[in-house]
């Protein structure tokens, strides 16, 4: 088993986050959790987009593909499909995943790709300096929405349930213990697992602060039945106070994306280990 320190970078990298940013909590917990999971460190791969959140992989000693704003999910899907041995974590902000990347969000859920999906939902665009994100609350005033946000906030959990996601959780960035448990469970879960995380953006989001999250969230109780779709759906629509914890874990495990792929029917090797079967290719030419 690896220890936390192995996920610490052995060289110095300047962290670009603001002091006090909620992202630090996530970073620390992710490193800690990975260290406790029994998987070769070389097999851990992050796929992230662009945003403050999406810089997380820069600070972890593991593989990463830090791609385009909004596009972490298709990249993650392909990585997993090309080498099912890898633990693939797609990671990014609310703008990244629910805004620019909205369509991939929908269809990655449908595919049931066996990845862990971490969304730093700070309810704002951090990197571009404070515009509304899809999850920003009605009325929030920003440098762009000067009369306040008028759109209905997105409900990613409900969408995930609508499109058949089997693992759905929510957690606050500062709650190390809870986050650790949730991430471990998500890694174990064979299929698409969404973790919507609340990290306060101390520089731009003056509404959804540390205090606000403390006051407006709660963890579902121990006797909450997270195998019940109906109950999960109910939780997804609660707005008064936002429920956190593992809200849904479908006990009827569906086949994951890679399990459907015929590419692995007769050959379990990762793609990089394969070569073309020239005999079969010649056969194909002869019968085309």
């Amino acid at each position: 088993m690896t220890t936390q320190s192995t996920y610490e970078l052995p060289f110095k990298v300047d962290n670009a986050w603001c002091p006090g940013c909620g992202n630090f909590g996530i970073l620390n917990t992710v490193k800690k959790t990975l260290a406790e999971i029994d998987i070769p460190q070389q097999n851990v791969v992050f796929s992230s987009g662009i945003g403050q959140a999406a810089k997380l992989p820069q600070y972890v000693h593991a593989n990463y593909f830090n791609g385009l704003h909004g596009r972490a999910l298709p990249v993650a899907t392909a990585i997993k499909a090309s080498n099912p041995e890898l633990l693939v974590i797609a990671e990014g902000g609310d703008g990244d995943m629910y805004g620019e990347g909205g369509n991939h969000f929908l269809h990655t859920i449908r595919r049931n790709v066996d990845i862990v999906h971490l969304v730093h939902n700070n309810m704002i665009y951090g990197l571009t300096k404070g515009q509304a994100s899809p999850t920003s609350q009605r009325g929030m005033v920003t440098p762009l929405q000067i009369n306040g946000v008028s759109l209905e906030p997105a409900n990613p959990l409900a969408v995930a349930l609508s499109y058949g996601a089997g693992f759905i959780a929510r957690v606050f960035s500062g709650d190390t213990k809870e986050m650790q448990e949730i991430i471990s469970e998500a890694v174990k879960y064979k299929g698409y697992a969404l973790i919507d995380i609340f990290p306060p953006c101390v520089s731009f989001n003056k509404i959804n602060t540390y205090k606000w999250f403390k006051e407006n969230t709660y963890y579902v109780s121990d006797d909450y039945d997270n195998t019940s779709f109906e109950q999960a759906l109910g939780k997804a629509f609660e707005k008064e106070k936002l429920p956190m914890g593992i809200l849904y874990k479908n006990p009827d495990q569906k086949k994951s994306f890679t399990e459907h792929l015929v590419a692995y029917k007769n050959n379990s090797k990762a793609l990089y280990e394969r070569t073309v079967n020239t005999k079969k290719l010649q056969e194909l030419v002869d019968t085309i």
Partner: protein
Amino acid sequence: MKKDITIVLSGEAGQGIKTVEKLFIHSLQEEKLHFFSTSEVMSRVRGGNNTTEIRIGSPVIQSFKESIDVLIVLGKNGTERVQHRLHKDSRIIGEEKNIPESIATSFSTTYVPFKDIANEAGNPVLTNTVILGYVLGMLGLQQKIGKKQLQKTFKEKEEKIITQNIEALKKGYEIGKDAVIKIDLPRTKSTPDKIILNGTQAIGLGAIAGGCNFMAAYPMSPGTGVLEFLAHQAETFGIVVEQAEDEIAAINMVLGSWYAGGRAMTTTSGGGFALMEEGISLSGMTEVPSVTHIGMRPGPATGLPTRTEQGDLMLAVFAGHGEFPKIVLAPGSLDECIHISQKAFDLAATYGVPVIILSDQFLLDSYSLTEKPDFSDTSYKKHITKTTKKFETYKITENGISPRGVPGHGNGFVCVDSDEHDETGRITEDADVRTAMMEKRLKKNKLITQHVIEPTIIGDSNFSTLIISWGSTYGVIAEALENKKIKGLAYAHFSQVFPLPNITKKLTEQAKRIVVIENNASGQFAKLIQMELGIKIHENILQYNGFPFSIEHITSVIDSELSRISKK
């Protein structure tokens, strides 16, 4: 006696022209005849008017011919649209009700009640088989060869269906024989070593030979064929095939797969490619390879979705924001489709750059014979290193290429970044590192131009006039040049269009007159040459009506060039 013939099947979408085409061209192959078969269809599933032209003749036949010798009418809109392509000796064949009288009387028209005959044979769906029989009879070909095709095609069906088809073939054949055309079609000896392919299949085969094991794409004509071809081979060759939710997902999946060690490809058309450009730029920045096939069709926007054009060359060459090396290939024949598609994977893996294959609807959908490829000792370098703890994704090397790692293979970590980055793949904003990384990436250009796919050059090495083309126009120009005395004239066909092969400079310097032939409106390749070499192209031959150049059109262009030369 005539030594070649052009037959056009004309009918509605959904009437089975494609079935007749398939059976017929396979029969032609058995007869050791050379042929070229090209289709033009409307953007609809039923109705309208589609045509398939099948030309039979000497082995260089590889283009669309305007002039029709035999028009076989399958449906009611089958004549008007092609009427202007008939000549005084043209024959029209079809059911009386489908041929307007005015047209019928202007040409030598034979009414054949295909459907009634099919009914006699037991089923109206046998109409296509009756037509097949008729054509074989008319051309004096062997009935048994048609029979063999039917047996092969329906081998999975019940006995009765086969018998009925054979009966229908026979009936059609008998009538066709009565109308036999006196013609002396030259046999070739080599057909057994040849196979029938269209461009789609050729690109698909090449991809598999190139090690393609991942395909993600969103359907878009005429690019969809390659996706479907690979889907059918997915299990046999272990290929991950996925229909993406959109083109943006597709290109990002391609990058994700290459990153993880796959050899991935996507296929689309110009409109879908426009959406992939940010991804192409990402491929350039991350140095994660990519292979993208663009089946061109006429734009702008939705344009003419089922027709042909070469309008997206500059789109491909300048795809993606920022500056990075890129390779654009444009096969001109089936053989090139195979080899270039195969080669595309090697180039992508070698240089860690985006490679784009430009084809078009005409090339993709036309069937012809090509040398059977020998894949028996096909192999490729993977260009993958087992990483060590000290592995750096963007190690600066002499030639700009860093050893390529894949996650999970070795002790190191593979960290790729779309931001400017240092050797470890971490974000940097340092001006010097930026400059060094830009130079690292751009340096590859030099290496790439040292290993280009050379243009095919035909004609007089002492040329003063040079005809230039790229991609699918190769066939028609090559055919037009065949059997011509071409003193003073040479023809260069480019299948690598970017970066330009170094030889282009020498060629264009020798030429006093340069004529570029392109299936587009603005002469994009001519512009590209001007841009790259700072020289002047003298003439553009352009066409942008959605159709490929005809052999007649190009022959007249070449004749006038030749006469211009001889006048001097």
